[in-house]
């Protein structure tokens, strides 16, 4: 069973400090993020209408969010009409309860899973384990994470922090019937995963998935993937349960023409991902259940600045260009959603009650590269700054800011303060004492000039 993020201690700066000392991790991350960044740039550059697609994607998502209640009801009606069953879950516990009961009703104790952020977010695998149900991850990277009893560290490539020789070690140790002479050649590792999972696919009776998109007009669910494990899970088992965040909705069938161009190019840097499955209701004799998940999303929706995070289609382009992510890695964010999008999504979904969650809006240099590559134009820096204002601040910082505000508010006060500072400039220490040391631990105090610009102007120009 893979480890869980819930209740993770620490905060981003502490986690990042540890991570940047791991040179293997930094090497793996740099290589992987730079590879995919280049591929993305080249396939995005092929489309002359990329900015138009991006504007449409943004607007479609905003329109959906504005009318989310209406479209969810339409989705429910369409799925029901097509023979599926729709369930609603306010939070993780309710979603896990629904899924566990559905699995138990089939009499099965094992399920196969398609990679899904939503089920990671609600920690479904552990909830199922507590009910005696074993969930097998089938995506190669998820399998590496699950076998290694590890945390995912990237949205698209959860095992991005592992290199081939580490993956070989994990397979040799944890995979039954793996050949002793397994090499660390990627095709050999992929072949081992194929053999390991094939029997399981053929005998599994229940599968659990998420979805990249669902279409309200038609009731269609859409899953994009590469390996074919998704198709195996979606197609072969008798019962299919899909757990989908309520923000994954698109109003009309036509809207897919936008997102099927935006997502693959932004995500894996391909013109199209190898496999996309679309199904509407119960197909080819399957039992189909859709679990619509809130789990904090309606709180995010209520925030006028922060709600744009719900446009996210989980492509992970923002992770791959982020200088902070590249050095700190995904684990430092303490959430299934790492990187820039995680820094705005996690504190909104979970609240900023813990040290870790309150530190996430600061896990950024505000360089804006994430905004630039975002296929649905989420202004991540804007949300980060807004969250920083909302995050809890220490008493000393609040008092300091109050005084600064009072001084800056009036030019005579500012001039006086500058003259006092100039006179006392020799006395200013390199590092501030007490609670103020938090400021100077990570910054130098700027030198105070002998004369303020205002005074210099007064002396030279007025004369």
């Amino acid at each position, binding site marked *: 069973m893979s480890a869980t993020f819930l209740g993770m201690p620490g905060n981003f700066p502490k986690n990042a400090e540890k991570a940047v000392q791991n040179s293997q991790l930094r090497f793996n991350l740099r290589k992987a993020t730079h590879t995919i960044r280049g591929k993305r740039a080249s396939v995005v550059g092929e489309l002359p209408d990329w900015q*138009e697609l991006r504007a449409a994607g943004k*607007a479609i998502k905003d329109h959906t969010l504005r009318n989310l209640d209406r479209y969810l009801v339409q989705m429910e009606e369409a799925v029901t009409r097509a023979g599926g069953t729709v369930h609603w879950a306010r939070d993780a516990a309710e979603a896990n309860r629904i899924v566990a009961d559905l699995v138990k009703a089939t009499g099965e104790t094992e399920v196969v899973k398609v990679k899904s952020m939503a089920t990671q977010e609600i920690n479904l695998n552990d909830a199922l384990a507590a009910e005696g149900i074993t969930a097998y991850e089938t995506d190669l990277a998820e399998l590496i994470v699950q076998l290694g009893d590890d945390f995912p560290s990237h949205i698209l490539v959860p095992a991005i922090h592992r290199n081939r020789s580490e993956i070989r070690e994990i397979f040799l140790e944890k995979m039954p019937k793996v050949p002793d002479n397994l090499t660390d050649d*990627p095709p050999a590792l992929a072949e081992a995963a*194929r053999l390991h999972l094939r029997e399981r696919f053929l005998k599994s009776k229940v599968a659990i998935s998420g979805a990249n998109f669902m279409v309200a007009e038609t009731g269609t669910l859409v899953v994009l993937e590469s390996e074919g494990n998704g198709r195996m899970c979606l197609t072969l088992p008798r019962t299919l349960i899909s757990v989908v965040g309520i923000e994954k909705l698109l109003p009309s069938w036509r809207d897919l*023409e*936008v997102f099927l161009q935006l997502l693959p190019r932004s995500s894996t840097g391909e*013109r199209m991902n190898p496999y996309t499955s679309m199904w509407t209701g119960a197909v080819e004799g399957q039992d189909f259940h859709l679990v619509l998940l809130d789990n904090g999303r309606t709180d995010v929706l209520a925030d006028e600045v922060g709600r744009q995070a719900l446009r996210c289609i989980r492509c992970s382009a923002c992770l791959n260009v982020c200088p902070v992510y590249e050095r700190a890695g995904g684990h430092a964010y303490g959430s299934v959603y790492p990187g820039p999008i995680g820094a705005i999504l996690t504190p909104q979904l979970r609240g900023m009650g813990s040290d870790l969650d309150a530190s996430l809006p600061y896990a950024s240099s505000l360089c804006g590269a994430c905004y630039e590559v975002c296929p649905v134009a989420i202004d991540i820096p804007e949300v980060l700054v807004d969250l920083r204002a909302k995050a809890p601040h220490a008493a000393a910082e609040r008092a300091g800011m109050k005084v600064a505000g009072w001084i800056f508010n009036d030019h005579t006060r500012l001039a006086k303060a500058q003259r006092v500072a100039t006179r006392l400039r020799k006395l200013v220490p390199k590092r501030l004492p007490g609670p103020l040391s938090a400021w100077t631990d990570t910054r130098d105090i700027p030198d105070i000039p002998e004369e303020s610009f205002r005074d210099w102007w007064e002396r030279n120009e007025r004369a």
Partner: protein
Amino acid sequence: MSARDEILARIGRAVAGAQDVEIPRGYRTTQQVEDLVGLFAERVDDYRAIVHVLPAAEVPAKIDEIVAGRRMIRPGGDGWEDLNTADGVVTSCAVAIAETGTIVLDHGPGQGTRAQTLVPDYHLCVVRADQIVSGVPEAIARLDPARPLTWISGPSATSDIELNRVEGVHGPRTLEVIIST
């Protein structure tokens, strides 16, 4: 209150008073492509699939040549039936997209069930030239969402190990496409 009613009520409160948004659709919905067949063939080939472009009259003989000696599933015709021991499957398709090198199956006549094109390790797909459209929007317009759809762009692949693309994980490791002109 049921979970459904509570979630809907929460959404109603969250968006009350927010402006609705117009959707600008300034992107291309069709493209002028001189040689659709050529572009499609090139893009399929980019995924390291095998591609043939043949006049319609020569296609049956080519299929016979390729499948000779293989235990092939032939949806709607006589052929091998057991998914697990079949060597491969031969199908037609519903739509093909030149710009992305994608084949779409709607699992209608000649296209088999979803499992038939998934479990065997080899997939031979015959695409008629008039089924090829230039881009994604035209494909979406031609497809029926009530049918199960499988979009295929090259053989099964993974980039999970150091982001190197490796062909062949769980789906067919070999994709061969005949474009019938």
